């Protein structure tokens, strides 16, 4: 019984870890070694890593991704804090409807706004710019941020603000002096999740950028091509994959508890 259980655990770990492990191993092989299925490269080489940074603008792509994701998340958190306070702590008519609306925006297909967004970005002269991506990413990140923050706001005890209200503090004072300090860990959690969402976005980045220099990391990895038109440069693709995934895996390792609490708060409870 116990042995069967540990076998199950081993199978689960193998299943979840192997694909990423295989990407790391493949990224360290080059030339014909890439086509062998050795579980560990006979001769490890960093050639693939050199290639993506020297022969392709991958460093630039990483910079684009960092800038776009950071700007989107900061803007969304800023807007979401006051909105979440209103939705989570004050009762008013139309609140339920508004929450439903926010939830449905976060669930609707990105492709449903694609042509309208394309027109908007063109009209503002933001095609093939980072600002255009930041603007379009708001539609993904903002509803999510508001939703998660609202959930956390509701969980805070009522007594917190009662005293402040009695003392005649305005809602603005309550948000900035009472809730903001308490919410720092929550903002951090939400920020990480929102950052990951923006970092991974593909459809908008693929459609609203044109040149390799403006591409974000996911688009660069998806469109990576080599000298041969018949075979993709798998070594390079795996190296790039490892480079962009490693920070996320480390983030998950370090902040596991926060991330899980944020994820479960983001999904509605029955």
């Amino acid at each position, binding site marked *: 019984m116990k042995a069967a*259980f540990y076998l199950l655990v081993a199978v*689960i*770990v193998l299943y*979840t870890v192997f*694909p*990423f492990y*295989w*990407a790391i191993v*493949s990224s360290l092989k080059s030339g014909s070694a890439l*086509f062998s*299925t050795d579980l560990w490269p006979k001769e490890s080489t960093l050639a693939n890593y050199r290639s993506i940074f020297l022969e392709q603008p991958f460093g630039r792509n990483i910079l684009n991704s960092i800038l776009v994701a950071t700007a989107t998340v900061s803007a969304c958190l800023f*807007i*979401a804090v*006051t*909105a979440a306070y*209103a*939705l989570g702590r*004050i009762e*008013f008519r139309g609140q339920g409807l508004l*929450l439903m609306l926010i*939830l*449905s*925006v976060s669930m*609707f*297909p990105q*492709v*449903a*706004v*694609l*042509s*309208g967004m*394309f*027109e*908007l970005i*063109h009209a503002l002269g933001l095609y093939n710019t980072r600002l255009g991506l930041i603007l379009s990413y*708001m539609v993904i990140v903002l509803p999510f941020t508001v939703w998660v923050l*609202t*959930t956390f706001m509701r969980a805070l005890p009522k007594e917190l603000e009662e005293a402040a*209200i009695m003392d005649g503090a305005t*809602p*603005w004072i309550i*948000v900035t002096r009472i809730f903001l300090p308490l919410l720092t860990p929550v903002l951090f959690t939400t920020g990480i999740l929102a950052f990951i969402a923006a970092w*991974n976005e*593909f459809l908008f980045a693929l*459609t609203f950028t044109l040149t390799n220099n403006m591409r974000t*990391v*996911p688009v660069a*990895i*998806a469109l990576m091509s080599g000298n041969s038109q018949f075979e993709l440069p798998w070594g390079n*693709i*795996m190296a790039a994959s490892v480079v*962009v*995934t490693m920070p*996320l*895996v480390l983030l*998950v390792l370090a902040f*596991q508890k926060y991330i899980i609490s944020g*994820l*479960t708060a983001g999904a*509605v409870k029955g």
Partner: protein
Amino acid sequence: MQNKGHMSALTRQRVRSAWVFLIPMLLVLAGVAAWPLLRTIYFSFTDASLDDLASARWIGLTNFIYLLGDPDWWHAVWNTFFFTVCSVSVETVLGLIIALTLNAHMPGRGLLRTAVMIPWAVPTVVSAQMWGWMFHDLYGVINDTLLSLHVIREAKAWTADPHLAMIAIVIADVWKTTPFMALLILASLQLLPHECYESARVDGIHPIKVFFKVTLPLIKPGLTVAVIFRCLDAMRIFDLIYILTSNSRDTMSMSVYARQQLVDFQDVGYGSAASTMLFVTIALLTALLLTLSKVKPGKEIA
């Protein structure tokens, strides 16, 4: 009485500031969500093309009539539903197994949880490329392993063979999304009272019976919500299919179809009609799932 009047003045002040606090979010959402959505719906009734959106002419329902007559569109609809049903059911079962395992008391549980979180942390694009490489017909580790275990006799073209490509896509998607499912189920499991299990154990009831009679009914609300979320998310699948099999007709989802028309064929009017149909489908499906499951969004976070 005076106190009550004071409270309602206070309430009115708070409601007023609530709306002030909501204005920035409402403005942004109106600009980046409502407006583009309405424009997309408008474009679906026009002959707009990508290089010249301004000269779009109203052509009524023409795009929709062509769309509903296109076998490729219906193929994409079928692919999307097939993918959603397969992927969500497999990941629900796997997610349950993993969540139950994570919930058991054992040494090294934290480590196991970290391992399970890895696929979640891997970007979809990266996961698609990783699986594309593992599924490679000549040098892929999957063919190599299956051949040496004599499960298959000859190498399979996983992503090119029309019969296998959708299976490959489901396998890659399940790997990536199961952790999310497992974590949500685990959250429900950890809320369960210990007493139920204690008495079940004292009565000597078989663990599998306990699972179906006690655990499953208790976690059902949480599980239902997780399944609905994943269904709606799976319905809009784009990245994975686009990267693994590009614009192949055999595996194309509704999102891939719409984008191909819009961007590759520059036909914004027709592509917008496809996007609008996808939007309507998902909206109807949401209403249906919410009614059937009796989940009330908006109330659940109270």
